[in-house]
């Protein structure tokens, strides 16, 4: 048995021996493997994302278009009885425009005109008259929305009968497919051609506003208190643990909370953006607190010392030095929290924001719905026309998210101070 050589006898390391070379080669191989693995993971995620986007785009872009029929309306010859000088809402209501529209359509397109036009086609007539009453004295071509069947057929997705009708209309030169502005300005409805995203969008906006107004100040103040002022006692530990756990609670439980407290106990208006906002605020606040605490913790103590050293009071140190430096981190946490809140469906369903809302909410206490819930409701619909509308709504939601993130990143960069 050879004794281990004493330190003085150890030979100098041979860095060029075969064993060394093999070791080096193995090490390089391991590094390469790791790189490739990472790259593979990134590519896989990118592929999933690309698949989502392509599918959504594919389905949804069509939802932004609408097929219209150019109806030549001879107003003087039509059964419409309206005085061009006296166009009031009452007069319009009494004029029975739907009947007039049907009559004109039948005359122009034949007996099955009703099936060709959307049920809301008469609204286009009404809007045109309102915009320019003088058309009542002449013949005007008014674009009215086609029915869902025609719409689908025009997009090559309809029944054979509808497709035949489309061909006929196209030959007559009165069919066109253009951008569906009403998708962005109308609210929910029964007919897929007439639905719009604006109601849900406004609902989301209002809800987000309430969430932000409630969760940001409270979250930041809580984070400040816990980091700067709270003594190291047992009860602060409990608060800390509780907040950390709250951030992980499933969102539907917040819905239950909202239901039992805000609706049943406080009797706040059901389905209102206020209640939705409050519920989501409960959910977002822990995220902001956690991010805020980390951001505040990362402000170096040397800045605090410097401020204290020239006689700043603790409040001045916190608000004039710590908070501005912690703001980028707090904003990041807020973005994360708000993005999560934007996409939440379950808690809002529980507090009733699933109702059919045909008009956009006027204020925070009006019944409203939010984009994710709208998407969910539309995806449940039977009519085939809602498929593309669902995808279109998803695109709108994604754009909204991107815009929010973009704004937040801009704000964060603006406040980021290099030290």
């Amino acid at each position, binding site marked *: 048995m050879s004794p281990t050589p004493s330190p003085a006898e150890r030979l100098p390391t041979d860095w060029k021996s075969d064993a060394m070379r093999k070791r080096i080669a193995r090490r390089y191989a391991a590094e390469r493997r790791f790189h490739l693995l990472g790259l593979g993971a990134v590519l896989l995620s990118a592929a999933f994302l690309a698949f989502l986007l392509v599918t959504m785009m594919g389905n949804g872009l069509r939802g932004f278009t609408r097929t219209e029929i150019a109806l030549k309306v001879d107003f003087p010859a039509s059964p419409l009885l309206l005085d061009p000088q006296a166009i009031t809402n009452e007069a319009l209501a009494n004029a029975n425009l739907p009947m007039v529209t049907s009559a004109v359509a039948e005359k122009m397109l034949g007996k099955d005109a009703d099936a060709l036009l959307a049920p809301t086609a008469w609204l286009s007539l009404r809007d045109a008259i309102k915009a320019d009453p003088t058309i009542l004295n002449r013949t005007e071509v008014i674009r009215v929305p086609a029915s869902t069947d025609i719409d689908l057929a025009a997009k090559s997705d309809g029944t054979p009968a509808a497709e035949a009708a489309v061909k006929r209309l196209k030959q007559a030169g009165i069919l066109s497919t253009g951008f569906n502005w009403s998708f962005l300005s109308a609210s929910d409805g029964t007919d897929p051609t007439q639905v719009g995203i604006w109601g849900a969008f406004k609902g989301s906006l209002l809800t987000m506003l309430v969430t932000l107004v409630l969760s940001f100040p409270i979250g930041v103040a809580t984070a400040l208190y816990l980091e700067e002022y709270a*003594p*190291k006692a047992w009860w602060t530990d409990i608060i800390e643990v509780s907040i950390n756990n709250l951030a992980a609670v499933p969102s539907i439980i917040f819905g239950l909370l909202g239901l039992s407290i805000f609706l049943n106990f406080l009797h706040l208006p059901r389905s209102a953006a206020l209640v939705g906002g409050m519920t989501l605020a409960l959910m977002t606040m822990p995220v902001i607190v956690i991010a805020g605490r980390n951001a505040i913790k990362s402000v*170096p103590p*040397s*800045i*605090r*010392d*410097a*401020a*204290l*050293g*020239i*006689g*700043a*009071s603790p409040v*001045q140190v916190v608000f*004039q*030095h710590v908070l501005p*430096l912690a703001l980028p981190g707090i904003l990041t946490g807020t973005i994360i929290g708000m993005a999560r809140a934007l996409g939440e469906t379950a808690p809002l369903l529980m507090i009733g924001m699933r109702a059919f809302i045909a008009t956009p909410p006027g204020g925070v206490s009006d019944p409203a719905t939010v984009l994710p819930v709208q998407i969910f409701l539309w995806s449940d619909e039977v009519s085939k026309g809602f498929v593309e509308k669902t995808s279109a709504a998803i695109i709108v939601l994604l754009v909204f998210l991107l815009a929010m993130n973009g704004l937040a990143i801009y704000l964060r960069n603006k406040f980021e*101070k*290099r*030290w």
Partner: protein
Amino acid sequence: MTEEQKSLAPADPKMTARDVKVFYGPKQAIKGVSIDVDMDNVTAFIGPSGCGKSTFLRTLNRMNDTVASARVEGTITLDGEDIYAPSMDVVQLRARVGMVFQKPNPFPKSIYENIAYGPRIHGLAASKADMDVIVEKSLRRAGLWEEVKDRLQDSGTALSGGQQQRLCIGRAIAVEPEVILMDEPCSALDPIATAKIEELIHELRGRYGIVIVTHNMQQAARVSQRTAFFHLGELVEYGVTSDIFTNPRQERTKDYITGRYG
């Protein structure tokens, strides 16, 4: 206080400390230190790491208040007033007794704002013109004016280390303190920047009472007129700087100064 200390005691000390003890929880960091600080002599605190010189320095402007477990006993007075009395406003105390730290820590603001912040929060400037005067005066006294007068809006953190430390000294001066405490101000600086700061201390002497903690004995020898040697939380020896470094009385002081410590 020792006889030696009593004989050296200035007639009109700016700050006095009597039997000061500092505890961090159960651990005693400072064991009964008594010393005077006056306006005419720069006082240096020297000693090995962990001897308590920085801890003691921080009691002079109550910076230890920020440490939750710190407890201070004994009496420290500024112009005769007990600084730990409930009637003493800590914020004002820290304006009167300023501090410069080991690592230069300018605020992440412009050079102008760095200097202007202190006077602003204490209400020392009535108008922008007043503030401009204060900023220029402070930067001149800190020996930085010529180098930055054309770029006052640049960020304070863009300066070199030595300039940043002078900016911090200027910031401390801007609130017109009476005493300036310096905690190893040159540790992070190169020799040229260090020399500039030492020259600055020499110029500030007399206008402000200065206490400097340093682990560099040569610096203490160059910069101060009175030196206090701390060891394990005690004040081992205090005396005229030239005496301490040519003929110290205590064995521990001698061992530390000649490099026989440890």
